[in-house]
């Protein structure tokens, strides 16, 4: 149980946000015996009632779709309009593109209503979740490590900045995250994609085995999806059970109602509550980090009750921001004072800048002809399919672009045969073709490293405010030349690899999706050793305000092409261990 909130008390730490970073901060700090106040802007949902992972489509009145007065932005809307995207919409609720698909009704309370949360500026597909656990409730589960190819990328190719840490610094913390939360995968011994301490791996479908064998001849790797899912169980956690391969993971927006897939509430926050050291306050939108004028340190936060609109103040010896990359930047920029006129922790002027992420869009769809007409197999009873790690700019240097990309893919069919929409014709022949071909498809889409650039940034909009009167973010984010060249190579190499594997190529996608689409936003408060060029140090502590930490994706110096969640948590664990030590020593 959570303790009662006491606004007269000075907590050892206040954590803002309850996703991967905030949940991990709550876990680590409470395990050090610290009294922690965790503030979440959204509500606490009865998540199992929301997700209903095993409900059949025909048992839902709209086969899993949202009510008719709700609208999800389509991919195209992001390209033909400008934010705020919900402005002038006749619909009662408008959601981001993640709600534009099957099973949207199961996630509508998890993601934000764009009407309440506008933003302005350049086109950007911003996906936000406001509820306990944030986006971890519906994340894609791919859990990858970074390596020194990423942390020291600048030294390798001369672009940008190295991270102030190396793999050796973070490796023990990746291990801790693996063991505490559980991760599924197969050891490959790749220096550029280090193995985790894996539990039972998922298995591959026939077309995926074919691709794996063919790629091995090219010196490339197809490995079972490295899922942030416990496949053997985590005995120390009573809120989770191991994966039962029910396969609902991809036919919904996401979510796992037995919590085999990691989510912050069951993986981190509920166990933290059980220590007796955690106080949780939901519906608490933090709008300012407050400052003690004498010491210059953070004194706590001010927050708005999202239901009543009333403002409260809470006090803490340390403040940790984990509101998500862009929201943490917004909060620092909002925290202006006479001491910090450009926003707290922003003497460098780098808060909101050096944004980076992953580009998405290019990919390939193909057909394994040998599987056509074969008896139906169970293709989607697993928490992920396959991952094809990066291969560019590792041993040799591409002349066309910097850095690399990997592919996420899958094959066979899920519950719904997607080829029912693309197969032409009608009648018995159409029906048979859909049936015979449904299990024979294989596809994959790329995730490419977007270079951090100072000019890609967010700032506060001088006029537009959200439903609670808080200034919103204005975006200045555009892909550049490197991204365009990389995307072209992604599409070409995807085709080449399928052809090499004897998979018939049906279509190649070359279009880059709108900025933000990957939901892997990073940077905006990057770490570094130089206070003039970075916002936080290697322990995610503000250079300006030592008791202010940023423990989400904001601090990543570069995006790599690996999905960020596991790195967010490993870094946060390391920083929180350090903070606990420093508080004990009286250094903060």
């Amino acid at each position, binding site marked *: 149980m959570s303790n009662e909130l006491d606004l007269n008390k000075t907590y050892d730490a206040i954590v803002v946000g309850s996703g991967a970073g905030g949940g991990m901060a709550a876990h680590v700090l409470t395990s050090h015996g610290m009294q922690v106040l965790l503030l979440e802007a959204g509500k606490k949902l009865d998540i199992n009632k929301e997700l209903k992972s*095993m409900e*059949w*489509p*025909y048992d839902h*009145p*709209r*086969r*899993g779709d949202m009510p*008719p*007065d709700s*609208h999800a932005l389509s991919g195209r809307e992001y390209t033909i309009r400008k934010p705020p995207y919900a402005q002038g919409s*006749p*619909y009662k609720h408008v959601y981001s593109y993640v709600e534009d698909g099957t099973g949207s009704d199961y996630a509508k309370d998890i993601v934000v209503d764009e009407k309440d949360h506008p933003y302005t500026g350049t086109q950007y597909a911003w996906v936000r979740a406001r509820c306990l656990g944030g986006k971890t409730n519906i994340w894609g589960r791919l859990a990858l490590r970074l390596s020194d190819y990423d942390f020291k990328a600048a030294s390798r190719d001369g672009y940008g900045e190295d991270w102030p840490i190396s793999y050796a610094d973070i490796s023990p913390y990746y291990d801790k995250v693996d063991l505490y939360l559980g991760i599924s995968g*197969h050891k490959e011994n790749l220096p550029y994609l280090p193995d985790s301490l894996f539990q*039972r*791996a*998922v*298995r*591959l*479908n*026939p077309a*995926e*085995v074919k691709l*794996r064998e063919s790629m091995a001849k090219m010196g490339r790797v197809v*490995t*079972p999806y490295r899922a942030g899912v416990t*496949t053997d169980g985590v005995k120390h956690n009573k809120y989770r059970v191991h994966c*039962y*391969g*029910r*396969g*609902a993971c991809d036919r919904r927006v996401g979510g796992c109602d037995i919590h085999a897939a990691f989510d912050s509430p069951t993986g981190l926050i509920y166990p933290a509550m059980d220590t007796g050291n955690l106080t949780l306050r939901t519906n608490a939108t933090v709008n300012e980090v407050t400052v003690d004028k004498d010491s210059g340190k953070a004194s706590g936060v001010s927050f708005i009750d999202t239901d009543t609109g009333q403002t409260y103040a809470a006090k803490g010896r340390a403040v940790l921001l984990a509101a998500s990359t862009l929201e943490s930047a917004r909060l620092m920029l909002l925290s202006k004072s006479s001491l910090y006129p450009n926003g707290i922790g922003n003497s460098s002027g780098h808060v909101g800048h050096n944004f980076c992420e992953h580009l998405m869009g290019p990919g390939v769809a193909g057909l394994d002809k040998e599987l056509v007409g074969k008896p*139906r*197999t*169970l*293709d*989607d*009873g*697993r928490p992920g399919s396959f991952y094809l790690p990066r291969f560019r700019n590792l041993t040799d240097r591409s002349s066309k672009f910097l850095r690399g990309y990997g592919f996420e893919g899958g094959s066979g*069919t*899920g*519950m*719904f*045969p997607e080829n*029912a*929409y693309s197969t*032409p*014709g*009608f*009648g*018995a022949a*159409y*029906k*048979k073709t*859909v*049936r015979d071909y*449904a299990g024979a498809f294989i596809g994959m889409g790329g995730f490419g490293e977007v270079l951090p650039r100072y000019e890609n940034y967010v700032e506060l909009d001088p006029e537009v405010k959200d439903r609670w009167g808080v200034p919103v973010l204005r975006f200045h984010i555009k892909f550049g030349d490197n991204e365009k060249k990389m995307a072209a190579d992604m599409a070409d190499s995807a085709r080449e690899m399928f052809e090499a594997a004897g998979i018939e190529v049906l279509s190649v996608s070359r279009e880059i999706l709108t900025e933000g689409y990957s939901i892997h936003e990073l940077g905006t408060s990057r770490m570094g050793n130089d206070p003039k060029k970075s916002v936080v140090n290697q322990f995610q502590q503000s250079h300006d305000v030592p008791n202010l930490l940023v423990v989400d994706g904001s601090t990543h110096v570069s995006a790599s092409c690996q999905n960020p969640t596991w790195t967010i948590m490993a870094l946060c664990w390391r920083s929180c261990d350090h903070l606990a030590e420093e508080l004990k020593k009286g250094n903060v």
Partner: protein
Amino acid sequence: MSYQINRRDLIRIGAGAVLAAPAIFAAADAPKFFTPAEFTAVDELTELIIPSDDHSHGARAAQVAAYIDVRLAEAFEPKERDDWRNGLELVDRLSGKLHGVTFMEATPEQRIAVLTRMAKNEMKPKTPEEIFFRELKHATAHAYYTSKIGIHQEMEYKGNVMLEEFVGYEVK
């Protein structure tokens, strides 16, 4: 009808559940948006798109028309309903042009000829009939393959069950 359901299907979905007679449904529930005549035409059109065959029942048994009707009745944009009403009119008009009778008055062969004409440019529809065919087919496919019959009998989906071990090939 020679289709059978096996024992496993019966265990999974409950005996008899998929055998609900469509005629009973139609008699019990008046359409919410379509007129009775429109409903009959949609029921026929969807069954022509996904018919019963040796393998499984088709769109009619899966009550595809009823599902489309319910969704249109509550659609937020009136245009969605207008498009369907106009589309069904186009079907009758096309049938009149080709055969001199409405779609439901036409013979089974004539009805297929009407639909064949509408489906002519399916990947790049141009005329209003062709555009309506895309909508009709998309809605039919969605409703059918999310139905009990579509999922269990036609596609023989084996998932959404608790597995002790993942299916597929272990990577060595």
